């Protein structure tokens, strides 16, 4: 059965057809949202929300792009919006932690490679970070990224190049120590 046939059946209430679409795509969606969020609960929430929204909007899917691409665009949108909200809370928490450190006095700690990688990737601007995660960590093609983010392929390539340059700048010396 093709994706379009499954979608047509799912539109008519055939849950098994939607389950088949789910099975084909869930791994990639979960992996991507986990890469973006770094948290199992959030990744589960974003994945579930993406599939529920896709189901709600099946009537809007016209088949111009692959179903997976359409689903990725929903998942990325859900994850980015969710993370912006979470970030606001985290920033508030960090402010409180920083204030506590100021009171107690902070002990300098040399970050290990994992921490440095996390810090460097987290500090990438969202538009670079998303492309980097999709392309270099999860193997999305520039065509898929461009369709998911609604940008030109050239834009996707330029953002990836910029993200890599920033990471090389931040992590180059750490890698020399690491090797």
């Amino acid at each position, binding site marked *: 059965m093709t994706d379009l046939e499954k979608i047509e059946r799912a539109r008519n209430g055939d849950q098994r057809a939607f389950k088949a679409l789910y099975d084909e795509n869930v791994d990639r969606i979960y992996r991507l949202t*986990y890469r973006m969020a770094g948290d199992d609960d959030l990744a589960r929430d974003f994945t579930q929300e993406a599939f529920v929204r896709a189901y709600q909007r099946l009537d809007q899917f016209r088949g111009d792009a692959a179903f997976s691409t359409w689903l990725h665009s929903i998942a990325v949108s859900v994850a980015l919006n969710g993370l912006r909200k979470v970030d606001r809370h985290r920033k508030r928490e960090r402010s409180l932690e920083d204030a506590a450190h100021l009171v107690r006095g902070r002990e300098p700690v040399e970050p290990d490679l994992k921490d440095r990688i996390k810090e460097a*990737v987290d500090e990438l601007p969202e538009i670079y970070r998303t492309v980097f995660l999709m392309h270099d960590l999860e193997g999305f093609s520039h065509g898929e990224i461009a369709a998911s983010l609604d940008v030109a392929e050239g834009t996707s390539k330029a953002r990836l190049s910029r993200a890599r340059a920033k990471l090389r700048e931040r992590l180059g010396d750490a890698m020399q120590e690491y090797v």
Partner: protein
Amino acid sequence: MTMSDERNDRLWDAVRGEYHAPPETPSGEMWDAIVPRLGGAEGESEVVDLTAARVRKAQKSSRWMGWSAAAAAVLVMGIGIGRMTAPVSPGEGVPVVASTAGSTLSFAARETLGRSETLLTMVRADVQAGRVDPAVATWTLVLLSETRLLLDSGIEDESVRELLEDMELVLVQLVGVMGGGDGLTDLQRSEIELALQGMSDRQVLPRIQAMMPQNPVLFGT
């Protein structure tokens, strides 16, 4: 492959291994959580049915202003009675009046919450369709004013007050981004979705539905 390429490859391998490396996909557990939200053949769905929402919207749009006028009258009466009775010292007969004021306010609050529920359902459906009816912005403003009036009127029921406060927050967010034609910019859409997500996180709609008496004709739900 040059030294530089090799170094870059090692760098990306390290990032791939160290940055938010995903565990095994909990496919079955997530599907179990998704299924109830898809709704069954019997129509027990929480999913917003766009077609149904459009039909409801078309039916309700024409009578919206009438409902608003009636609601405003009830609201003013409730608040008026509440304010008139508030300073009176306790005495014989007062509990009856206070009770009347309280129930009138409570009625007005539930009525406003009922219409807010309808509005938010319509906004959610509209956002999914990439547009918002310009009239909805006006209705949102009206409901925000009513909600604030009710909050200022000293509603004693804690659960109703909390719901009104949550509703006020959602409506303020919506008023802030609506307007400027019926098309939505990406930013507007994103902000509205965030407001609706916050509403969903706080379980606003289920709490309203739990509070509503079983009289859909009276409350327009």
